[in-house]
């Protein structure tokens, strides 16, 4: 079962993503910023990270660099309000392994489709799954 780490300073949005991903069968862990991410990441070993692009604390490029250098450069999906082209990804996020982005406000279906594209699941999770607030 792929493990997704959700990093967002907005608790409500964190919850939306967390609920949806857990519902569709992912194992998730949430963090409220970069520092929190690196506190929790060691015991979790995420297959994919969703990263809000505008958070207080550690700047995104630093987070990406550190992920690359110390944590095996896991794939990252950016959650943003502004779309990015491939060129932008190459120039601005060259230091990390940014694989895609989700623009807010997103459709739940879009979220699920994007995540499963980069972290395919072995099997579907049962629908009835309790919501666990990981924060």
């Amino acid at each position, binding site marked *: 079962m792929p493990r997704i780490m959700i990093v967002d300073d907005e608790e409500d949005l964190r919850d939306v993503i967390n609920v949806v991903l857990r519902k569709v069968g992912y194992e998730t862990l949430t963090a409220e910023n970069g520092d929190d991410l690196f506190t929790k990441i060691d015991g979790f070993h995420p297959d994919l990270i969703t990263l809000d692009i505008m*958070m207080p604390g550690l700047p995104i490029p630093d987070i990406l660099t550190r992920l690359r250098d110390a944590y095996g450069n896991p794939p990252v999906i950016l959650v943003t309000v502004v779309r990015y082209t491939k060129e932008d990804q190459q120039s601005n996020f060259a230091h990390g392994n940014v694989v895609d982005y989700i623009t*807010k406000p997103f459709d*739940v279906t879009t979220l699920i489709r994007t995540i499963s594209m980069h972290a395919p699941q072995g099997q579907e999770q049962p629908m009835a799954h309790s919501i666990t607030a990981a924060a």
Partner: protein
Amino acid sequence: MSSREPDIIRTLREEERLGKLRGHEDAEGEDSEGVEEPGDFCSICCVPQGGQTPAVNLGDPAVLYQTIFENSAVAITLTDENERLIRWNSYAEQLLGRSRDDLWMQPVKNLYPAEEWAKIRFQNIRQRGITHHLETRMLHKNRECIDVDLSLSVLKDQLGNVIGSIGIIKDVTQAKTMEKALQRSEETFKQLYEKAPVLYHTLSPKGEITNINEQWSHALGYEKADVLGKYIFDFIVFSERDEAQRSFQAKIASKQQYSQPSERTYLTKTGEERVFLIRDFLSFDEYHKVLSIQTTMEDITDRKNIEKTLSSSRDELERCVEERTAELVRTNVRLHQETIEHEQIETALELTLSQLRTTQKTIQEQNRQLRKLDQLKTNFLNVTSHELRTPMAAIKGFVQIMQQRMIGEITEEQEKGLTVVLRNIDRLDHLVQDIMDISRLESGTMTFAPEPIAVSDLIAGAVETVKPAASLKHITITADCTASLPALLVDKIRITQVLANLLNNAIKFSPERTAINIRVKPDKEDVLFEVEDHGRGIPADKLEKIFEIFYQVDSGLDRKFGGTGLGLPISRGIILGHGGRIWAESTVGTGSILRFTLPITPPQGNPSSEKETETFSDG
């Protein structure tokens, strides 16, 4: 001549006239005898016995005649009837260079060159004893000829027989020589006068022409015969005539032999005017009365013409020099002024430059602040966008979670309510999106990310976006882009947004169950997009206004038809940003066509000049 005849000759003539030459017989007698001592001339001379000769007692006539004979300043010779010399005086010996022995009883013809003697004989015969005079030549002993005036008288007896002759001989060699010299001199003078390269004329004291030379004739074209006796003034040009006459009279009156040369213009026979330098020379008689005026005339016409030409050339040259000098002065003044102006300009420029530098600094500072402000603005927009959308995303997410029953079952009414919430969230999201776009266009911070994209993909994307809205009104959307079109280098999302805007607009104003047609075709350097609806149309005076921000809001259309009314202004901004054009055509009551173009080759560096970036800063 006769007045100068020696008295003895006159006496002898008298004797001859009276036929009383007493010594004749004696002479003949002596002649026949062949011997007579010379020198006793008186023996053959007779003293007149008639009363016609005044009785003057001069002593012995023989002595008298002898004295006269001997002392005469002419040579006298006497011959006998055989033309042999029998008596002569000492002057004759002297003249002929002969002694008494050389002469005594010599034929007189020996004293003459043969041809002269022939002439004398001829004269003698022709005149038959009359005394006659002739110029002839005699032979000196040294065989040189002597020019003489010969007065020859034939002596006859009472019967008319020639008994001898008397020759009175005057040496005229000197006179002849002088005469010849004079002739030569005159000839020379005449030659000089005639052939001189200057013009000569001779005038009477009244001014009548008495002579001209060849040059005069040649120069003025008149024959000598034409001008002799005429007044010289008639040949002078009219304008100078009076003055010439006055001057001439003054010259005569002054009796100055020479006078100052003067210039005078003469008319030639052909009417040509020639200028001469005139020099007069007055000749006087022994009473110092003016005899004639000799004038030399030097033709100076050519010189005058050259002088005139030279003078005119000099004047021209001077004028040129003056003009050139004046021009140089003007140029100098102008240059000076220009220098001053240049200096002033330079000073002004320096001042301006300094001001410009200051201004540049100010502008640089302002630019820096503006850039900072721009950055702030962009940041603000990004942050605002993020801050607005994040809660919407949370709301939308949980509504969808609930709607999809991820967190438990809901009732139909609950689902209906959630649908309303969802629709309004989307509406709000569009509004936020539009406001953000307008803000970016207004602030110039909207940027484009061009990428090659097929026209059909653009249309498909836009149609997909508006499909739900079209379905609600049962509107059919058709697309005609069969023409082969190149891929366009544009911002895919933004152009799709434009097409979606136009389609949404068309849907909004179309009645239900109508069609909306999309057409795309090449148009010269561009690709032309058309979105046609069959709505109520747009009045002509509003065709431009619909692209103005908030027109739709202002006009109240928005409240009836929904939307912010920002779609068309945003579309215009995006199309202009891509180097295209956008406009509307409409027939009220029939429908509208909104058109825009996109260049096949986009303008260099325009759409992609700045990347839209989201700052990675803490919100």
